[in-house]
């Protein structure tokens, strides 16, 4: 026993144990390695690529330039060209609309689920999550099958003599929006459900008892106290939708009214073979999303006036 103690006091383990700084660094190391390997280094590569010149299918590391960023807002002649700017704005607009619609649909849905009995709640939440078990691409193709000219919806409407001509829904902005709402609604419902479920419903009775009608109760009590869920859900929907490209690709087929940033970036990497421009777009997109989130947090915080618990 005694011998063992002496050994340990002299060993590496003992040396580390006497130095809390070394200990902390050691514990942090695996996390830091993973973070650096999978986040920092790839991001730095993208930043680097965005400042290089175009070279088909790869990157020319010998030429450094700002042209990629300049060409986001100019044409070949160097004049102002809003082509990409419009795509950016459209993406932000689609993302905003998707978030708002998801919120309007998701809040009552989450509230409804949260007020069921325990058994029902588990079953309904499962129903919300089941679509996740199917590949997103496959689900988007399924939407195609439903909404195309010879699709399920048109044949049902025609058979029911509700319409005479098949509706042309494919490749419209409306369908892309529908696809986005369908695809991202669960990301809104789950955090909303989590925060509504924690809500003390006796507060609703208290508000009514004090003379507040339904709308006032909602605005003054339920909404402020479930704000964390609204914020989390909105961010979880907004960020991926701004950068999404599968939905607009398959349901919008890159027609001019539905093209989103994600599609443009994809095109630069896979079709135009312009990696530097694609990288520059990615980074600008990142900056824009970051800015949007910061603004959103500011507004949300102002709204609830410190409502968060």
């Amino acid at each position, binding site marked *: 026993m005694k011998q063992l103690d002496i050994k340990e006091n002299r060993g590496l383990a003992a040396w580390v144990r006497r130095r809390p700084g070394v200990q902390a660094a050691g514990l942090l190391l695996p996390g830091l390695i993973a973070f650096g390997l999978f986040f920092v280094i790839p991001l730095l590569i993208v930043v680097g690529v965005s400042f290089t010149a175009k070279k088909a299918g790869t990157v020319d590391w010998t030429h450094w330039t700002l042209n990629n960023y300049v060409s986001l807002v100019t044409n070949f002649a160097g004049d102002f060209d809003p082509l990409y700017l419009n795509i950016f704005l459209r993406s932000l607009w689609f993302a905003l609309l998707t978030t708002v619609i998801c919120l309007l649909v998701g809040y009552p849905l989450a509230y409804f689920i949260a007020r069921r009995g325990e058994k029902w709640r588990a079953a309904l939440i499962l129903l919300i999550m089941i679509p996740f078990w199917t590949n997103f691409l496959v689900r988007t193709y399924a939407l195609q099958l439903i909404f195309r000219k010879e699709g399920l919806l048109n044949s049902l409407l025609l058979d029911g003599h509700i319409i005479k001509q098949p509706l042309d829904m494919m490749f419209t902005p409306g369908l892309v929006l529908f696809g986005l709402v369908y695809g991202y609604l669960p990301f809104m419902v789950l955090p909303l459900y989590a925060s509504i479920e924690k809500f003390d419903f006796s507060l609703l009775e208290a508000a009514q*008892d004090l*003379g*507040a009608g339904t709308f006032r109760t909602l605005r003054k009590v339920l909404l402020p106290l479930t704000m964390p869920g609204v914020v989390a859900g909105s961010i979880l929907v907004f960020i991926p939708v701004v950068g999404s490209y599968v939905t607009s690709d398959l349901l919008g087929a890159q027609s001019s009214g539905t093209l989103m940033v994600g599609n443009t970036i994809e095109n630069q990497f896979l079709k135009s073979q312009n990696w530097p421009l694609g990288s520059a777009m990615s980074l600008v997109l990142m900056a824009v999303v970051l800015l949007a989130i910061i603004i959103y947090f500011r507004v949300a915080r102002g709204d609830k006036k410190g409502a968060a618990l």
Partner: protein
Amino acid sequence: MNKSTEGAVSSVELVGISKKFGDSLAVDNISLSIREGEFFSLLGPSGCGKTTTLRMIAGFEQPTSGQLYIAGQPVAGVPAFRRNVNTVFQNYALFPHMDVTDNVAFGLEATHAASKTEIASRVQDALDLVRLGNYGKRRPRQLSGGQQQRVALARALVNRPAVLLLDEPLGALDQKLRKEMQIELKHLQSQVGITFIFVTHDQEEALTMSDRIAVMSNGKVLQVDSPATIYERPNCKFVADFIGQSNFFAGRITGMDSDSVTVAVGGSDGGSFAVQAPRTNGMQAGQEVTVAVRPEKIGLRRVVGSDAIHSNGLNRTPGRIQRVIYMGTSTQYVVDIPGGSTLTVERQNSGIAEPNLPRFARNTQGIDLPGDSGLVEHEEVVLEWSPAVTLLLDKLRCRLRQ
């Protein structure tokens, strides 16, 4: 039970109210008339329907049948937020995201009952009333349980409701604070003059604060009376048992004269004794009855020698002490009596010092011993109580009365 008897205005009136949840009957055809400015308690064990009754008055539940009137107006179909009643909830239900001032102002702002400046002054008055004048900027979670309780009171009272409903508001407080709040609530009620309807399962709380108590069990109202009447003249075995403690033992009426009856208690095997009780209508010779006596109404004497005591008109039985339970202000004795029953006797601890008392008691025949008189287990004693405090209950466990 109806307003005409007292000539007072009825603040809340329930006429044949029933409430069903699915197949179970939570409230079973109850009728109550609660007077203006009264402190009225609904008392009963959990599940007796008292909270459901309160929630129907508040408007959170609709009665399955029956009529409900608040200040003389029928309120069927009137939603909670349009009723001139306010509730103090069991868990207070304060809004955690608002400070105390905003909590208290909520009702006035919701109903647009007053201008901004008037709201501010009324909120401050309400907070002063519950002695929380300086706590306006605090959040509910920064307050103790007792303070939260008072905020809940202020939040309700500031609206000047016709009726204040209190749903076990003292349940979450510790014993000492609860006693203080009982006094404070009672004081507050006499100050504001609003009708209070107070739901509790704590009989002592109800006795302490109420002008009248409705004792409920299984959705029914068993008795509505003043605390003293409920305690001294319970209508039935449930009330006698639920409020305070009672001794019950079986007997049979063997004799009657103009104003009293004689009940034989106990069988031939274990000895028997006779009990006198006041005579009331409906009593018949030979009738099986249950005798009820409160523990603190029974006197205790030591058996000395042959125990030749002159008749003093009291009911009397010999007994043997089975257990002695010291309770601070009093001592309880569990005493075996003839016929196989046991009686609980409670005597105040008078503070007469041991060990002098036993000698004093032994020398004094007929003295009613205090709780701290040094009686021990297995000691032979004589129990005495007045016929006037002896209640007779019939087979249905209801008190025999006029």
